[in-house]
């Protein structure tokens, strides 16, 4: 610790005896080196204008030296290792100034420093030329070396503190401002200049546009001049550009409307009703349409007209209860006045047992409920508890509290099984952050998250908290919990993600989880409510406002940020009532649009100008087919008649569900709604396998019974349409089937009817929610 300042003093005083070769232990414990470097800089160079963090790190990042594919790789490259995007300047400083006997910087002749020779490709460099000789980047580095390659920290008091944080993420950068954050453009090829201003804690503001790294999420849509920050938009739609400077990233939104003003006026688009005066504090019912329509207007996207009543019936039943409407449901619905039909349906679905059962499975999948070895009783208890929560209209916050704070015998206390799905503390940290915060902390296991706020301290700190929940038949809170922080090699300190360090007093330990959960479900935590509201949105609308739904990131902004904010507020106000938010969604114009795109909105997949058609989830499709056939399918050893959406164990053996594409129990099912429409195997299975045929070709189904009872052709066609598609056959369809049935040989009639029903069960209108 003391040797370090001495060495560098020698350098500064121009000691020409070449004592740069002083041996330095290869790995200096980083805490001490931080203190030492700080001390040295304070002692000698506090007056210098140059600083490694502010001056040099941006150059390295801008030139791409520290990206993952180059020296920023975990193992470095060519024996030179930098932290990813300069996230750990102390280590980088050490690597550049100290390692390799200090050969990377040449104090006597800065221009011939290895760092510069390589970067300017004056000598052979695997990464090619990264800096132009005598360009501004090279000059900065040269001047910095000329001044003695100092560290020169910006804030001494921060540096001297001891703790796991070790001030690694303290770049002294108070605010990074990018202007403009949102641009609405008028034509392709239009250029927008961006200006980036960094404000530091010492009050200094600097235009850092030239040192900011810009990256378009879709490089084919947006081109960027790296030096001037000028952005050109080449494709229509909404595009995101990420600006990175030091440790901060800022997303910039660019919108080029789908139709130009001229095109929009030429086309006679069905116009939307004028936006109502909006004040959701009194009445949240127009909240969704307010923001969705505003975005559509911004993008010049026409919206498809409302869907018809029959389509809405089928759609809402499938989305909210995972099953087709029953004939009596259909009758009740159609009997009502058309003004109140839809809201009545939504209310009745939300208060139904079918809703409870379907959403029990949805929550179970989200929480990754599954059967662990020898844990049938535990799984049943867990599933039963979830079901109870839904029946009792428990708030989502209380469900989550129940899961995370449960104690006791897992065969009796259902929620105590939650932690069992991830055995080790790190997996738990990943699970908890993904499920409840929709954030991928996973990246922060090995390095600070390059695109988000999460640090390694957050990751291992959360793991340390969750490690206190011990399981051996009973779930108990345990005092000693050790999660090793890979950087320090010592026990990680418990820490709230992006929040405070938690005390680890002996008596306090069991309360770590409580402290975390209080923080997690607090109204002030923006992620908790948004994560679930966004998932509900995807269930109803087919795509997350933030998509993928488990990837909330500073750099992955919502398509409709205000809408997500206000819906989440509404969710909190409702007492975290899942049904309240689903009701708002189901009653919105946005949800009730036709699935048929218009010419002007056919390219839209993210702004809800029309309903997003989607394949039925494997379990829902299997149940729907059983319902139409009136002949249940057996699942594993479950009692006959058990519905696929009611299966407790997501691994219940079932070739049907596997082939139709149920999601794997290890994942949250966030990614794959269903893969049904895909796959030769699934089609062979439908066409030729025993799944439909075994029941359809036997006497054991509704059609055979109708045939036996002597129903007429037209009755059968009509009733099958109503059961499967909730509509009557149109005239061309009636004519088609009359023709088929009119010309059939008498002994082939039954088979033809079976083939008719088969085509109804396998056609796109049936297998998709429209």
């Amino acid at each position: 610790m003391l040797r370090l300042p001495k060495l560098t003093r020698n350098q500064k005083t121009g000691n020409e005896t070449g004592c740069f070769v002083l041996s330095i232990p290869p790995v200096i414990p980083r805490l001490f080196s931080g203190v030492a470097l700080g001390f040295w800089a304070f002692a000698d160079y506090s007056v210098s204008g140059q600083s490694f963090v502010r001056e040099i790190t941006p150059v390295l990042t801008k030139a791409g030296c520290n990206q993952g594919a180059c020296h920023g790789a975990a193992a470095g490259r060519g024996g030179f290792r930098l932290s990813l995007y300069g996230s750990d300047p102390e280590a980088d400083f050490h690597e550049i100034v100290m390692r390799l006997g200090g050969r990377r910087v040449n104090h006597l002749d800065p221009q011939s420093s290895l760092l510069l020779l390589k970067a300017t490709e004056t000598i052979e460099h695997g990464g090619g030329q990264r800096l132009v000789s005598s360009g501004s980047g090279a000059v900065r580095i040269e001047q910095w070396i000329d001044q003695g390659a100092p560290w020169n920290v910006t804030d001494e008091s921060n540096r001297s503190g001891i703790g796991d944080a070790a001030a690694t993420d303290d770049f002294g950068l108070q605010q990074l401002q990018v202007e403009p954050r949102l641009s609405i453009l008028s034509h392709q090829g239009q250029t927008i200049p961006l200006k980036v201003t960094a404000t530091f804690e010492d009050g200094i503001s600097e235009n850092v546009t030239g040192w900011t790294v810009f990256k378009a999420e879709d490089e084919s849509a947006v081109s960027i001049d790296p030096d001037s920050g000028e952005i050109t938009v080449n494709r229509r739609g909404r595009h995101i550009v990420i600006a990175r400077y030091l440790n901060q990233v800022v997303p910039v939104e660019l919108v080029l409307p789908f139709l130009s003003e001229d095109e929009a006026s030429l086309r006679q688009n069905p116009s939307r009703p004028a936006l109502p005066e909006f004040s959701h504090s009194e009445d949240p019912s127009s909240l969704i349409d307010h923001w969705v329509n505003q975005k559509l207007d911004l993008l010049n996207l026409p919206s498809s007209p409302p869907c018809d009543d029959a389509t809405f019936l089928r759609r809402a039943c499938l989305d909210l209860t995972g099953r087709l409407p029953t004939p009596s449901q259909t009758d009740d619905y159609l009997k009502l006045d058309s003004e109140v039909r839809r809201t009545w349906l939504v209310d009745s679905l939300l208060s139904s047992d079918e809703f409870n059962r379907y959403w029990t499975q949805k929550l179970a999948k989200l929480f990754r409920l599954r059967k662990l070895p020898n844990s049938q009783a535990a799984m049943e208890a867990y599933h039963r508890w979830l079901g109870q929560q839904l029946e009792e209209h428990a708030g989502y916050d209380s469900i989550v509290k129940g899961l995370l704070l449960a104690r006791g015998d897992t065969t009796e206390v259902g929620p105590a099984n939650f932690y069992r799905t991830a055995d080790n503390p790190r997996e738990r940290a990943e699970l908890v952050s993904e499920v409840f915060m929709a954030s991928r902390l996973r990246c922060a296991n090995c390095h600070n998250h390059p695109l988000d706020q999460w640090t390694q301290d957050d990751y291992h700190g959360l793991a340390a908290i969750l490690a206190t929940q011990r399981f051996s038949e009973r779930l108990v809170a345990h005092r000693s919990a050790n999660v090793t922080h890979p950087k320090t090699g010592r026990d990680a300190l418990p820490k709230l993600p992006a929040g405070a360090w938690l005390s680890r007093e002996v008596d306090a330990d069991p309360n770590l989880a409580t402290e975390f959960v209080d923080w997690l479900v607090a109204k002030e935590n923006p992620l908790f409510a948004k994560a679930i509201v966004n998932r509900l949105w995807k269930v109803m609308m087919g795509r997350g406002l933030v998509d993928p739904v488990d990837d909330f990131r500073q750099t992955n902004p919502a398509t409709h940020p205000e809408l997500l904010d206000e819906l989440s507020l509404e969710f909190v106000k409702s007492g975290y009532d899942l049904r309240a938010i689903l009701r708002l969604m189901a009653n919105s114009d946005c949800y009730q649009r036709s699935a048929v795109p218009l010419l002007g909105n056919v390219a839209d997949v993210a702004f809800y100008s029309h309903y997003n058609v989607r394949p039925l989830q494997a379990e829902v499709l299997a149940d729907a087919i059983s319902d139409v056939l009136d002949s249940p399918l057996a699942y594993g050893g479950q009692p006959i008649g058990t519905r696929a959406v009611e299966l407790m164990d997501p691994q219940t053996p079932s070739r049907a569900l596997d082939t139709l594409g149920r999601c794997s129990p290890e994942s949250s099912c966030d990614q794959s709604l269903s893969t049904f429409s895909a796959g030769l195997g699934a089609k062979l299975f439908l066409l030729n396998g025993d799944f439909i045929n075994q029941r359809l070709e036997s006497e054991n189904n509704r059609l055979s019974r109708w045939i036996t009872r002597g129903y007429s052709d037209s009755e059968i066609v009509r009733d099958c349409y109503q059961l499967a598609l909730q509509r009557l056959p149109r005239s061309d369809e009636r004519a088609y089937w009359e023709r088929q049935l009119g010309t059939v040989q008498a002994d082939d009639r039954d088979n033809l009817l079976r083939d008719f029903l088969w085509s109804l069960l396998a056609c796109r209108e049936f297998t998709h929610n429209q």
Partner: protein
Amino acid sequence: MKRLHRYPIGPSEGHGNRPDSRWSRRDFVRAGALATGGFAITLRDGFGIADLLRMQRIGAREVKQGVHANSPAAKACILIWLDGGPSHLETFDPKPEAPVEVRGPLSSIATSVPGIRLGECLPQTAALMDRVALIRSVTSPLGEHQFGTHYMMTGYQPTPVLDYPSYGAVYSFLDQKTSVLPKNVAVPQFNVGGAGMDGGGYLPPHHRPFSVGGDPAKPDFQVRDLNYFPSLTTDRIDRRMEFIESMNRFGQNSVEQESSQAQQETLGEIFTDSDPDLQRAYQLMTSSEAKSAFKIDEERDALRESYGRKTVGQSCLLARRLVERGVPFVTVNHKGWDTHNQLATRLKDGFAGAKTPIGLIPSLDRALSGLITDLEQRGMLDETLVVVMGEFGRTPKLNTSGGRDHWPRVFSVLMAGGGIRGGQVVGQSDSVGESPFDHPVTPSDLAATIYTQLGIDPTAELQTPDGRPVRLTPPEAEIIAELT
């Protein structure tokens, strides 16, 4: 019934403008089908947003020029995927000089090429060393099964923004030959890397690998649902196909009824009534010739024996049968290589209770040598690229359970046939198999090499459903020139 037999995805003829020259660059392969809820869409131009859609149709025309542009050596690829991450130290990169905790419990043997040694369980492969090339310096930062698998199978590190297609899906997508057999087949199942991946990426779903399903080593092996359900006849299957096409067309009519007069003509082009996967299922099950490709029991006993009777061996034999009949890409999924413990048992001896106690490496040795020999004897080796790899290697030092854990920093890949020059090692690992010693090769480099050998330009671009052009390999990917 004839009209059922057309392929809806592909060049659409007869309407629309000439390709805009902006998009006609020969080195670009732009193709794609915009899918919205399963509807294949092609659009006539004439309004703003059609720009993006038009490119896709043009792209479909240009595909023909993009494939096989630079005189390919290989017409097919068999990928033997060692799922779980095989130990490089016990297979293709033994370290006989290293200390015992690195060297491990198994020894090494000489091969037909002086100076190249292999693990002791690979004697038959060793005898064919002059036919195979090894890359011992493959390196990746991803030591988790799903991530590593995605990187190795696509050439791209996984990102949340885009799901990349595997080699087989790309090949299937670009291959314009019509064929009743699926173009991208997995034996027995494509459940690789913990099953997190469907292999199709952003390409239309019917290019995903078709999993055969059954185990070709079992006496009663057959592809599921390929034979008619007992009460069904060809007439009834035909009738069902006609009915379902009518049903899907009725759906389309309802679309038109809801739209205004002016829109009908264009919308008529947007929605097609075909279901590519169903068409393919129909063709496959009604073609006895295609079905015979899966009849592995038609092979001579001695030949079946030469591949070894384990699943991987018979899967390789089935792969050869499929390739012989024109299937361009077959993945043989060999599972069980995640050897965190009991290394010698898992890799060499097999578990004592098993019916035929034999470890993973001897099973692979039989299968691989059987395949190479068989392909060679049939004159197919030069046009069939054989690749053997897993998602990463294993830790240089044995762990306390006598196993090795995940190690992506350096591992080995084997290639043979398809224009690969055998008898050589490209790239070395260091003395303990910990890091590349020279010539580091990334999975992206590997992707560029595989595509090139298959006659596909690795810098070509494909189009995602939302119109984003994506290169087949990342810009930094370099072809491993030494291999050919």
